[in-house]
């Protein structure tokens, strides 16, 4: 009996309320474990959230916009032909290991990304890592790259020469992947550098407890805005509801990855605040142009008039969605504000179908080779940022289409199979979307529309759009480029090449006393401006 009493007492003593995390520690709840912390080889947002605190690039995005501002480079100039960029580096900046940031260190980083034979490139590739974004943004490695030379022309001056002008060059450099690492530290750790990151950023790396958390501490010598909080802990909390529970319990101060249904929970909690990340993602419906009916523009217009986008956004995005009128989200500088969207008008849609000779509506389609089959409308099986609940959204759109006489059969499949079918152009009508990498309109439009007739784009061929986009890619003047992107959006709109449905603004939740967190469209967010009041 005495034993039972003792056990009870010990049990009760364990229930003393937990310590609240102190004001000197900011705890952020992430959706998962970082892959690794070497910015050059990662591609995911969970890892880059941490590397952005530890590293700086030559340039960075300004506030919540995708405009570019100085970071490690104080200023720069570009030659009149747009091929030679000269960067002046900030002086007296040191890596966390005490080594100086100078032109030699920057050149070393570029060579590592760019040259396949560089020992610190080669070892990564052998270990199964790829410098994927360098390849994507700068055309490839060695001679394939648009970069032809990188040289130190002074202790703090770097000159980068391109084979031809690249319009999004600065926007590319602002991406997290091109943050500058300490060459000495990379050489010391080799392929393990991703577990021992050393940069110049506002926070120094302290510890990574696998499957649990990453701990950072303030860099008192930081060149920019000095961190207001001494210690940052990024915790891995896989389950969305559990993460919100931890926030409500005061165990963490901020989080991402809210369920759409939980947005209202955060809004109604007096201790919490909701922040929306400016949208950088667009969901669309694509037509397959090997389907004869879809080759008729009037049929595509009927679709555009039939779908009630506003209704879908209001009912299914938890208050974080926006109606999309074009492919680029509104935060991008190539966005066309004058573009007038097709209005939701079922009778107009029916009229368009009648005009196209489809008096009975549309339920069977004819492929190019004469094969007839029922119209299958494909939706993805997993939630994406642009379509947070694809099944419900697909059902709503199918219901809208049915109202005007377009009968579809909804179908889904495993995500990888879905992407495979899309790649091979096998789906007659399907949902997909895109999330931007670098805030440049080229990154949104060119991948999809620069190669007319590609199978992965449902064989959509719009040569005038491709021409405009390729022209814009060669210019460096942002104003001129913006004009071309606006024109491209108008052309796409007039042709009803795709149906752009919605943009989403991913929600973040914080405790009320956390101030100074600036959500960014690309997810490049910095903790040094955050404080706990």
């Amino acid at each position, binding site marked *: 009996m005495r034993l039972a009493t003792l056990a009870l007492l010990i049990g009760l003593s*364990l229930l003393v309320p937990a310590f609240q995390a102190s004001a000197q520690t900011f705890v952020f709840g992430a959706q998962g474990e970082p892959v690794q912390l070497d910015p050059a080889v990662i591609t995911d947002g969970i890892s880059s959230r941490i590397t952005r605190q530890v590293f700086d690039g030559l340039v960075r995005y300004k506030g919540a916009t995708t405009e570019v501002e100085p970071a490690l480079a104080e200023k720069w100039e570009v030659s009149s032909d747009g091929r030679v960029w000269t960067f002046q580096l900030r002086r007296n900046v040191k890596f966390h290991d005490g080594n100086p940031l100078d032109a030699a260190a920057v050149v070393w980083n570029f060579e590592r990304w760019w040259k396949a034979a560089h020992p610190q490139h080669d070892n990564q590739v052998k270990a199964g890592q790829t410098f994927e974004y360098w390849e994507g943004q700068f055309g490839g490695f060695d001679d394939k790259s648009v970069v032809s030379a990188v040289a130190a022309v002074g202790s703090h001056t770097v000159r980068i020469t391109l084979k031809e002008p690249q319009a999004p060059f600065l926007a590319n450099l602002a991406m997290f992947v091109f943050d500058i690492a300490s060459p000495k530290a990379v050489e010391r750790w080799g392929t393990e550098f991703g577990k021992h990151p050393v940069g110049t950023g506002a926070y120094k790396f302290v510890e990574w407890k696998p*499957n649990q958390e990453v701990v950072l501490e303030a860099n008192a010598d930081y060149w920019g805005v000095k961190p207001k909080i001494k210690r940052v802990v990024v915790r891995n909390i896989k389950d969305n509801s559990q993460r919100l529970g931890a926030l409500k319990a005061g165990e963490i101060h901020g989080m991402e990855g809210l369920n759409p249904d939980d947005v209202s929970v955060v809004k109604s909690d007096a201790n919490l605040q909701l922040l929306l990340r400016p949208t950088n993602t667009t969901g669309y419906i694509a037509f397959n142009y090997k389907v004869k009916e879809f080759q008729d523009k009037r049929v595509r217009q009927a679709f555009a008039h039939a779908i009630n986008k506003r209704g879908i956004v209001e009912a299914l995005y938890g208050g974080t969605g926006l109606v999309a009128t074009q492919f680029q989200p509104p935060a991008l500088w190539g966005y066309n504000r004058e573009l007038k969207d097709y209005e939701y008008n079922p009778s107009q849609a029916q009229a368009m179908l009648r005009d196209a000779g489809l008096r009975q509506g549309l339920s069977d389609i004819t492929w190019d080779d004469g094969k007839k089959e029922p119209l299958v409308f494909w939706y993805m099986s997993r939630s994406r940022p642009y379509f947070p609940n694809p099944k419900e959204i697909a059902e709503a759109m199918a219901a809208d289409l049915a109202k005007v006489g377009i009968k579809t059969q909804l179908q889904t499949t495993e995500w990888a199979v879905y992407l495979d079918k899309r790649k091979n152009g096998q789906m007659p009508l399907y949902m997909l979307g895109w999330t931007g990498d670098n805030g440049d309109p080229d990154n949104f439009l060119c991948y999809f529309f620069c190669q007319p007739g590609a199978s992965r784009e449902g064989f959509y061929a719009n040569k005038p759009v491709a021409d405009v986009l390729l022209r814009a890619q060669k210019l460096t003047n942002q104003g001129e480029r913006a004009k071309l992107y606006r024109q491209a959006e108008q052309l796409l709109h007039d042709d009803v090449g795709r149906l752009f449905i919605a943009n989403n603004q991913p929600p973040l939740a914080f405790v009320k006393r956390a101030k100074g967190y600036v959500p960014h469209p690309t997810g490049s967010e910095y903790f040094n401006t955050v404080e706990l009041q």
Partner: protein
Amino acid sequence: MRRYAIRRSLTVVPVLLGVSVLVFSFIHFIPGDPALTMLGERATPEKVAEVRARLGLDRPIWQQYVLYMGKVLHGDLGVSIVRGDPVATDLLRRFPATVELAVSAIVVAIVFGIPIGVASAVWRNSLLDSLARLGALTGVSMPIFWLGLVLAWFFGVQLRVLPTGFRLGSGTALVQWTNFALLDAALQGDWPALVDALRHLILPALALATIPLAIIARMTRASMLEVLSREYVRTAEAKGLSRRAVILRHALRNALLPVLTVIGLQVGHLLAGAILTETIFSWPGIGLWVYESIESRDYAIVQGVTLFIAVIVVGVNLLTDVLYAAVDPRIKYE
């Protein structure tokens, strides 16, 4: 006895081989190319081909299997597709957290399950019995993830008396020697860390314990009822022994044998339940790890962990059978 043990051990070989083939083929035959899953919207044919070559997916499947098993026999479970870290090393580092959780859960299940079962049998058809049976039925049928969320919400968010998840608080810095948090804290004499670790253990251990607890309680009840009707129990009662002595010393001892088998069988359930419990409570063991790996199609990890769990389950069952033979000489290998 020795012959039985040897023969019984030999049956393990085909079982494990079968498991390895199954695990290997499941992952390869489920639809969807892992290369595509990894690359997502950005997949180009060249990239897909490159990734497939890197993962060895371009070879015939039997070759992939033979290569893999050759390495496994040398203790090499390959490297993670996503992170590039050796699977075996990570597995050993994460496993203690799961063991800590599973052992706590089974202790909770035994400490509460057996007395409940005994009481339920002794006071058969009483209110207590009805409540216990209802509770056991609920326990068996309650989804762990739901129970876990409710526990975390109630004790963590509403009452704020226990943490909603994790293994240690964000302010606790415990040096990891063995990766058993309780043991490390005790060995280092770090009492605040020990209390912190215990506090974090309570809710996940309770969530994971419910199903085994219910099963043990039901099994104990049934077994006790059977034993209580035996003649030797009546004899003991007739001898004038106290009811307490009859139940605890005579009946329970014999009733526990089948219960022990059931406890042995719970190992598999516990490891499966750990996947959900660890995910809900952000518990850094192999369950959470395998969940994340299934999502990212990191099948080097999924294969490695599944094989490892299979070895453990088969091993524990083997041990139970052999122990049984030791206890009961009537059991022979036919």
